């Protein structure tokens, strides 16, 4: 494998994941099993999907502050309508994907700050979620439950799902012309436009695809938890942003990495388990997660400097 800057970018997230994994195995050797791995990474699957969704929004230089409430909303729909009246559930989810596409276009046409529009939308999704499920409850659709608790031979479901998500997102973002287009919109909107592409279609596509991933995140989450509530995924907003950055993505310029984003999400999930294995007082768990984030980003800076030196040599 050549030491290109793209590979180097991916090196930090991969290394930090491996170091954390080694730490967990050292502290708790029993985690080094089929069931152990599944438990460690189970909750990472919905987070990875939400992170890929956030990454698609960030690819076009926007930021989605409603990711957490949207995933919560989807979870509520999945646990109620999608379970009781599947057709209605599918229609509602399709409509919400359409809403995202419209948002992507409106933000561009009216030159609105995406942060504020999605902030407003976060209230809207939260409102619908509360209307659907005023108290925690509902039932996960059987097929979602079956997929999430399935036990494929040799490799745990959580690992297979993460790899599939990473490969699929990588193919879409890096290998398809649609992926090149939305990264181009993030890099230089005007030149993409002059080359004859429709910015409106590209942005609508990016937002719709992001919504589709977020819908998958909500359904996967319900599959794991079996029931939903309106606040189930609120922390996903910040987790997904942190995951993208941890995985080597940038806020602007269309510089994103699908594989990195999935690894970033896995790292964040693992950090939580690592800390509880370390028996750190629960008071400091959130703080230590912040510290891990800082350390990993510090490492990236170090590698970036090495990369620059390498170029000069």
């Amino acid at each position, binding site marked *: 494998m050549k030491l290109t800057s793209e590979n180097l970018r991916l090196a930090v997230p991969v290394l930090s994941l491996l170091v954390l994994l080694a730490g967990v195995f050292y502290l708790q050797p029993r985690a080094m099993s089929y069931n152990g791995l599944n438990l460690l990474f189970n909750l990472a699957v919905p987070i990875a999907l939400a992170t890929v969704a956030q990454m698609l929004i960030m690819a076009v230089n926007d930021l989605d*502050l409603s990711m957490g409430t949207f995933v919560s909303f989807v979870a509520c729909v999945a646990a109620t309508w999608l379970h009781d009246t599947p057709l209605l559930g599918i229609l509602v989810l399709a409509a919400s994907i359409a809403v995202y596409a419209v948002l992507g276009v*409106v933000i561009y046409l*009216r*030159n*609105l*700050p995406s*942060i*504020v*529009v999605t*902030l*407003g*939308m*976060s*209230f*809207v*999704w*939260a*409102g*619908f*979620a*509360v*209307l*659907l499920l*005023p108290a925690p409850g509902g039932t996960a659709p059987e097929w979602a439950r079956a997929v999430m608790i399935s036990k494929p031979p040799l490799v745990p479901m959580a690992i297979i799902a993460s790899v599939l998500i990473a490969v699929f997102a990588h193919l879409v973002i890096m290998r398809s012309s649609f992926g090149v287009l939305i990264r181009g919109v993030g890099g230089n909107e005007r030149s993409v436009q002059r080359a004859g592409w429709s910015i409106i279609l590209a942005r609508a596509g990016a937002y719709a695809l992001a919504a589709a991933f977020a819908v998958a995140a909500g359904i996967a989450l319900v599959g794991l938890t079996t029931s939903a509530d309106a606040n189930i995924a609120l922390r996903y907003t*910040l987790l997904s*942003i*942190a995951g993208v*950055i941890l995985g080597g993505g*940038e*806020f*602007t310029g269309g510089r994103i990495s699908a594989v990195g984003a999935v690894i970033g999400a896995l790292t964040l999930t693992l950090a939580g388990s690592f800390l509880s294995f370390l028996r750190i*007082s629960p*008071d*400091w*768990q*959130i*703080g*230590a*997660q*912040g*510290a891990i*984030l*800082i350390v990993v*980003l*510090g490492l990236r*800076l170090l590698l970036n400097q090495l990369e620059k030196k390498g170029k000069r040599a």
Partner: protein
Amino acid sequence: MTAVLRKPWIWSFVAAILIWFATILFTGGASTQGLTQAALTFAAFSVLVGIGQMFVITLGPGNIDLSVPATMTLAGTVALKYMATENGLVLQGLMLAVVIGIAVGIANYALIKALRIPPIIATLSMSFIVQSSAIWTNRGLRIKPPEVLADFTVSKTAGIPNIALVALLISVAAWFLLHRTVYGRWIAAIGQSLPAARMAGIPVDGTRFVTYVLCAVLAAVCGYLLACFSGGAALNMGSEYLLMSIAVVVIGGTAVAGGDSNVPGIWGASLFMFLVVSMLNTYGFGAGFRLIMTGLIIIAVILLASGRQAASR
């Protein structure tokens, strides 16, 4: 008249006054005074954090402080714990809150500068650590504020809540700082173009550093006052101010892309945000519907404001 209409802050006030009338009409004028005073009090807290956030956002794209809620919580808990309901320690308590603010601000900027982490992630990681410290010092206890302070924060002078007067004083100071001092001009210049500001010999790092410290100090003071007002510090007391601090800045007419700030607009937007919620409460809507309406109204205001900008261009 046209000169007034062109001011970017006028619309948030128009919206706030409209909503105020809509509420008063419904109650038949029964709660006019109570509503106005409640609006002034609660808006004052949003104004305090909003001003700090506005200074940071003015620095340009990507600049944002997500550690506001954690700083509020830590300053509130530590100050109240230190004062231990002693009336004589009020000033020392305030100083302690300010020192906490300064420390968080320094730490934030150290991460941004030394590790070159994007501000959104740097302040997010920092907020995890600050929140953990708050949990560790507080341990879920609710400590009462000194009586003098509790009285001061809930009483009025000449019919206006004291808290609103404090916020007004700080707003005037902020306006002066922004429009009549070199520092204010520097912030705007950096927000408009960082390279140009650097070429012009503006101490970019120093200015940004001071701004992040200022934002954290304002958040700390707000936390101190809020803890006294609500009869004790709680660990979740800052949570709603994260979105609030960003929303009031943007609705108030400050450019999200930076370089153009607006102090009066923050007042209009803060009053507006409080009045929307109380109007929907008065009309007797449920929680879910209230959230949806709040979100739609935020988006509508942003759409209207952007239409105005597009027309003037």
